[in-house]
């Protein structure tokens, strides 16, 4: 059998067959391109109109009247970047709350929280640059550079919005960026609320005994490196929403109480991620293999101004590594640091237990309000 295989490999038939397969493959890809070129059909089912419609449908849950608009932040990364912003209760004179979403999400996913949060103060939620409905410029492939670009986009947005300072609340990747922003512009942040933030702990050193396993790991991480984390969704094309619902049925379940149509959330997430993945590649630049941050926050948190109060909250079930919490607590001994763990919630704290989440955020906001009167003295939390 082995002889026949080697004969087959050496014979002239083999390259011809390979060539045919290769050509066929090209033909296949070409067919896709050909089919996707006219507007009536495309493999990637992204459409601006659909994303807008989906967002509107989801936001029907929110009772508070809102204003959606593009904020032109000028040439930050690309030539003219725009950030899609939702503003609630803008008439209130209190310090506004700004919400930053996580990887692969968009503004609409805050729908369960906005009503409670916007009751007393202005709330602004925006799609991060490179995500959702915001413009999608190509970020740098360097970890620090990409991070700085992201942070600058937030700062430019603040300037355009004419907000002096705000309470910054970030989830997952948003939490990482919020911390990074507070490091650069500590005076602008009156309170930093981190909901299960990404990128805090350091990557633990791995001791792989077997050489074979080591090689396999290196190969896998090498192969995975150029692929964007959510590429599978884009490859799935029109099957994308179905794929999301298959591998993450829990996401739509979280919103099942408010949204009757379980297809909405997967559709929305698909629409958010089926465009050019520029924000995702920025995330890819910021992470080393398998989701650990290249520049973990725990190393840099020392540089954070002591006056910035931090509320850190996460779900007890969350699968994110929480080993950094104790170190963080030790490092923030001289300032306000409030750690809250919500039992029964996972990584998506804001959607798993919206009531508890809102309560903690409002508590942090009240603290920020009280601090503005007493000139932001570092006081430890009462509990």
């Amino acid at each position: 059998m082995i002889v026949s295989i080697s004969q087959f490999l050496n014979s002239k038939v083999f390259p011809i067959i390979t060539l045919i397969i290769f050509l066929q493959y090209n033909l296949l890809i070409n067919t896709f391109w050909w089919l996707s070129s006219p507007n009536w059909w495309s493999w990637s089912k992204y459409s601006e109109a659909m994303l807008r419609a989906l967002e509107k449908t989801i936001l029907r849950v929110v009772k508070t009247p809102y204003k959606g608009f593009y904020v032109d932040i000028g040439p930050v990364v690309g030539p003219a970047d725009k950030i899609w912003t939702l503003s609630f209760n803008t008439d209130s004179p209190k310090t506004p709350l700004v919400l930053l979403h996580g990887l692969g999400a968009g503004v609409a996913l805050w729908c369960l929280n906005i009503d409670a949060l916007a009751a007393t103060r202005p709330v602004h939620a925006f799609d991060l640059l490179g995500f959702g409905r915001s413009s999608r410029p190509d970020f740098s492939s360097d970890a620090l550079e990409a991070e700085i670009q992201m942070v600058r986009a937030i700062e430019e947005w603040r300037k355009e919005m004419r907000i002096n300072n705000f309470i910054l609340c970030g989830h997952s990747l948003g939490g990482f960026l919020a911390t990074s922003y507070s490091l650069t512009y500590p005076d602008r942040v009156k309170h930093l609320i981190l909901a299960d933030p990404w990128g805090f702990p350091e990557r633990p050193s791995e001791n792989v005994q077997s050489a074979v396993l080591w090689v396999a790991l290196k190969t896998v991480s090498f192969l995975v490196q150029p692929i964007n984390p959510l590429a599978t969704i884009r490859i799935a094309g029109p099957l994308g929403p179905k794929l999301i619902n298959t591998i993450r049925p829990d996401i739509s379940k979280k919103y099942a109480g408010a949204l009757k149509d379980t297809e909405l959330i997967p559709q929305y997430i698909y629409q958010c991620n089926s465009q050019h993945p520029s924000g995702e590649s920025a995330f890819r630049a910021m992470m080393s293999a398998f989701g650990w941050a290249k520049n973990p926050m725990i190393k840099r948190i020392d540089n954070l101004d002591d006056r910035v109060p931090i509320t850190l909250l996460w779900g007890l079930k969350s699968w994110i590594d929480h080993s950094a919490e104790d170190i963080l607590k030790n490092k923030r001994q001289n300032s306000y640091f409030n750690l809250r763990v919500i039992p029964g919630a996972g990584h998506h704290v804001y959607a798993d237990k919206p009531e508890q989440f809102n309560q903690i955020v409002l508590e942090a906001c009240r603290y920020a309000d009280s601090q503005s009167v007493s000139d932001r003295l570092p006081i430890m939390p009462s509990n």
Partner: protein
Amino acid sequence: MNLSFAGCGFLGIYHVGVACCFRKYAPHLLLNKISGASAGAIAACCLLLDLPLGETTSDILRLATEARKRSLGPFNPSFNIHRLLLHALEKFLPEDAHLRVNGKLHISLTRVCDGQNVIVSQFDSREELIQALLASAFIPIFSGLFPPKYKGIRYMDGGYSDNLPTLDENTITVSPFCGESDICPRDDSSQLFHINIANTSIELSKHNIYRMIRILFPPSPETLANMCKQGFDDALRFLHRNNLINCTKCLAVQSTFVVSDSLEEHLVYDPQCKDCKMHRQEAMVSNVPDTVLNVFQEVIDSANKGVLNWIFKHRGMKLLSVLSLPYTLPADIMYATFTKITLLSHRTRRLVVPYRKNTTFTLNRLIGNQLETYFCEYRPCQALILSHNTNHINRLHALNNKNRLLGAAPHVGNLLWDASRVVLDQVSNALNKVNRKSQQITAKITCQLAITEYGGANVEEEIIDPVENKMNLNFTLSLDDSDLPLEQSPDRKFNTRQVLQRKPSFTVNKTDTMDDDTFDHILQVTSDHDAVMAYYYLDENNKVKVTEIFDVTEDESSILQTPHEKDVNTNLEFDDDELFDNSLEEDLGDNNLFSDPESEWTGGSCLEELEPTYFTCGKSGVADIRPEADRESMEATKNGNKFTVPSFSYEEIDF
């Protein structure tokens, strides 16, 4: 709070670790509903039935080693996991299993016809329960071709539709995969994604990928032991985080309040309680119970010791077995197909006959060594009735052991393996026998019964000494006739229930003036009344303490109740109803009376002397050394619940 176990094939050993922890530190959580799919359902059933953990572990390990020793592992055609599971369940499940788990055990199944998830919790018979458990663990093709039927409908593995059935908001989810479950391992290899397959959240990490492979391919006993330990540690971490580890006293108070439907937060967790603190600290350093660890050690040893294992562990031998696969595999396949066909034909004959509406008479005649079977079939063919007689004369041996006949069919790989194994085992046995000394241990069960009665305290009156009667009963039961060395008989069991219900005809020491028949009466009470609460735990001296609280206020007997008490009880009838009657009928109605403490017993030294029972009144300040049961009822009285709970504790001293 309810529990839910994820389906996970051979990783079910993780659930054993979790179960160990719950039994040891949070037995009150096991009183509610437990759900599961696949291996999780079996684990849930074992937990609800209080099956000894050691034996369950050894059975899982046996299954795993059975699967490992064949070529292609569990995918070897002659490895029939379905049948092995059936045998194990038939062996372990008690006769009244279905009654005891009814309404509590929730098994997740997938209906074959439409792929919908079905959760069953009512079982009419033991067979039905077994069928449901088997159906929940049925992976098509891997376990067999035709899914088993439960109540006439075909079902397969619950893992296809809902692998982690959650009954309500307060469900503690247990999963051996790192993800968003309450009790699960925490990996530090990836931070990127997690997916949610059939309600089970799984992080995309290399550990989880390894675990996924191990669902069907069992790992080595060492790895399994580690997984079990991991389960124990994770469960302990969860209990710690949620403040669920309490001392028995606080547990008793808590349970009483749970059954009386008045959940009061301050009693559930009391950070001031010294015993709770001690219990917590003990839990910090504790480990998987020895019974389970011993089983692992045995299996690991048997897998590593011996000349044969040494040979087969060698890399060359592994290569050889892989290379010989093309030759042994066809033989295996042939054997398996042969067996399956005969089984199938056996089954189809039974199934098809009623379908055709034939009338069949089978006449057996046994003459000497020969069994003659006459099949008489009457087949209605249009209007005519055709009689169709066939005579089968079979050899008795062949008929009875159809499988053994086929067992002699070519089965090269395993046959060679088995033969060499037998020879080498004999050699090692012979070597061992030279060194072994026969040990004789006389088992002695010492039982101490401390019975204390508390008088009802009036509301105005300060409680000075509520103890009215107290009595210590000690009896020793010697099992001299058991000449089996303990080490050699791991299967030997002592049925606690029998021992405990035996008449105290041995030695009865009493410290108070009570009649002999009081003890009899108490025994009667225990058998008549379901325990309001029964739990046991292992204290630091490796003693199993069984504590049961019985509701005897309704009892008319004057031995256990003084007239004064009766008055108090009648006055407090409303309280009693609220506190106990609900529990008797609803929550603990079909709970077993005695939990099986053997599973936690460890082989220790023989305790010859009786431990003195410390018995003091409530005011004397040495409250800590009194048996747990007394303290808790004291506490209850002090808390203003004026019910009388004559409580007693059995202390089973280990031997």
